[in-house]
């Protein structure tokens, strides 16, 4: 039998229905792959083989009875940020030690209702704060990709580093992820996978550990554009438990794939040409423009004048919201408690020992910018700049632009324990320079692999769409994927 883990979700779905193999066989193949690879890659921080096999068995019964769901028998990895009933849910933080929720997040409930199988929980930056997956309490994830002729370990990006690495190394058919400033798209670009952050409100945030509530959105990381479309269709829903989730019909995203781009206007924002950007990224961008032009789209130069202010505004808004959201970790209701001489001492010791350095840094920044006397200068100013960032996008969409093409990241994957980034937190933050604008404006953005750099590492392009127009993103990203081809990491693990 061929290696079942080599199949895309679309292929596995069709072959399961044709009874070419069983869901149990498919799940077993993935569990075996995880067992072999996870020690090297550290993508999973909890594997749930018994649950996976139980779910696969139930899928086989439904496949046999002809009542299969849209994702029947498809084995998925779940980012540790998603609440999963009775199963490890710690946002990869020490402060949530031993936490096993008595509820299931809406997004994962939707996936299970469609027949998907859970393989386990995936590694991530602590509380989704990071761009390299190095802030996880469970240690860094290794990128399945290595530079030509090198065995140096690279980061898979973050915060959804475990999700991206597991998809790239075929340790799951697809994965859930979340994106607050680029946490789906940057790791997708670093691992040669496809990641989409949908419009704010497209997926319910209920049951997902909160980082920055006005920016957080769930989305999939998958092996190709079609698989990402299949997963998002299942994940998205309106939900009475999240009042920011939107009551708009979820389209059948897969059906748009393959439609020609004739008549589409693609904007190229000049502000995304940043100082010190490697020539290879610029070349990739030009190649992407040429592909879309060949496919019948018209290319329009546009300006998004407030782009450079998105990242500094983000580093006020996101830490401010995080400092409020993370106030709940106090050693009382869940997770870690470190005893103290009184209650305040207990809080302070618990939080000092439970949070890692990056999380503390962001809580401190957030607390400072919200504190008396600084609120107007920092937080209010940042929220006003955010209005201007959103208006930049509204103006170009109003002028008839259908989607915007940009690089996904300013570089390819970098090394684990990079000295420059360890010394200067802002250097790490600059990873999200092309992705963070999209969160600030609440728009959908997709990262799609577009080529390899001279060292053989994947590079991605990003498409940004109108609110709730994920369809145009899938349609356009598919054209890039067809032109660029797919990229698989040579197996070394």
């Amino acid at each position, binding site marked *: 039998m061929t290696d079942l883990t080599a199949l895309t979700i679309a292929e596995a779905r069709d072959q399961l229905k044709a009874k070419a193999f069983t869901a149990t066989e498919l799940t077993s193949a993935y569990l075996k792959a995880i067992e072999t690879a996870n020690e090297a890659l550290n993508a999973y921080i909890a594997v749930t083989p018994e649950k996976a096999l139980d779910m696969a068995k139930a899928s086989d019964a439904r496949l046999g009875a002809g009542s299969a769901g849209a994702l029947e028998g498809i084995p998925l990895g779940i980012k540790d940020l998603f609440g999963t009933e009775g199963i490890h849910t710690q946002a990869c933080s020490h402060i949530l030690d*031993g*936490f*096993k929720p*008595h509820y299931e997040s809406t997004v994962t409930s939707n996936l299970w209702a469609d027949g998907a199988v859970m393989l386990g929980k995936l590694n991530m930056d602590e509380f989704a704060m990071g761009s390299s997956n190095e802030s996880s309490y469970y240690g860094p994830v290794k990128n399945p990709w290595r530079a030509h002729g090198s065995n140096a370990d690279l980061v898979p990006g973050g915060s959804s580093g475990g999700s991206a690495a597991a998809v790239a190394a075929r340790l799951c058919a697809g994965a859930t992820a979340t994106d607050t400033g680029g946490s789906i798209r940057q790791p997708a670009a670093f691992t040669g996978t496809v990641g989409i952050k949908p*419009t704010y409100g497209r997926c319910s945030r209920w049951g997902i550990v909160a980082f920055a509530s*006005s920016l957080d959105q769930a989305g999939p990381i998958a092996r190709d554009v079609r698989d990402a479309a299949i997963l998002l269709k299942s994940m998205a829903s309106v939900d009475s438990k999240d*009042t*920011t989730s939107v009551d708009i019909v979820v389209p059948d995203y897969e059906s748009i794939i393959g439609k020609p781009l004739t008549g589409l206007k693609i904007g190229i924002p000049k502000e995304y040409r940043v100082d010190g950007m490697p020539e290879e990224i610029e070349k990739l961008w030009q190649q992407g423009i040429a592909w879309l032009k060949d496919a019948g789209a018209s290319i329009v130069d546009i300006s998004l004048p407030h782009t450079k*202010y998105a990242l*500094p*505004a983000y*580093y*006020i808004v996101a830490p401010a919201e995080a*400092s409020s959201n993370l*106030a709940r970790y*106090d*050693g*009382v*209701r*869940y*997770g*870690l*408690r470190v005893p*103290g001489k*009184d*209650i*305040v*001492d*207990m*809080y*302070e*010791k618990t*939080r*000092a020992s439970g*949070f890692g350095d990056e999380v*503390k*840094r962001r*809580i*401190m*920044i957030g*607390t*400072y910018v919200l*504190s008396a006397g600084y609120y107007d*200068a*920092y937080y209010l*100013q*940042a*929220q*006003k*700049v*955010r*209005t*201007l960032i*959103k208006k930049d996008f509204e103006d170009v969409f109003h002028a008839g632009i259908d989607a915007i093409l940009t690089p996904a990241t300013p570089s390819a994957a970098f090394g684990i324990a990079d000295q420059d980034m360890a010394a200067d*937190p*802002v250097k790490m*933050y600059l990873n999200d320079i092309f992705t963070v604008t999209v969160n*600030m404006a*609440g728009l959908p953005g997709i990262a799609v692999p577009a080529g390899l750099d001279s060292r053989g590492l994947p590079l991605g392009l990003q498409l940004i769409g109108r*609110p709730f127009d994920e369809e145009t993103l899938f349609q356009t990203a598919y054209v890039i994927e067809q032109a660029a081809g797919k990229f698989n990491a040579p197996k070394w693990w």
Partner: protein
Amino acid sequence: MSVDISTVKRVARLARIAVSEDDAARMTGELNTILGFVEQLNEVNVDGVEPMTSVTPMAMKKRQDVVDDGNKAADIVANSPVTEENFFVVPKVVE
């Protein structure tokens, strides 16, 4: 604007995070790097600009004022480090 070590200690106290003298010194440098980076926002002319409150224009959703969940005290305290008869137990707070 920049912070000094006593401000860092005050903010840590507000955030309920215990910091040692060394932590506070290190954080002072890191926080000033970040505050230096966000300083550029002051260049932006925001006259007459409303602060963003929601990325998507939406009316606040309303629902019927009815109890639709509950009676699960044991579930709610299940993950607590210390409980007694479905109560969270904390160190004494009233003298």
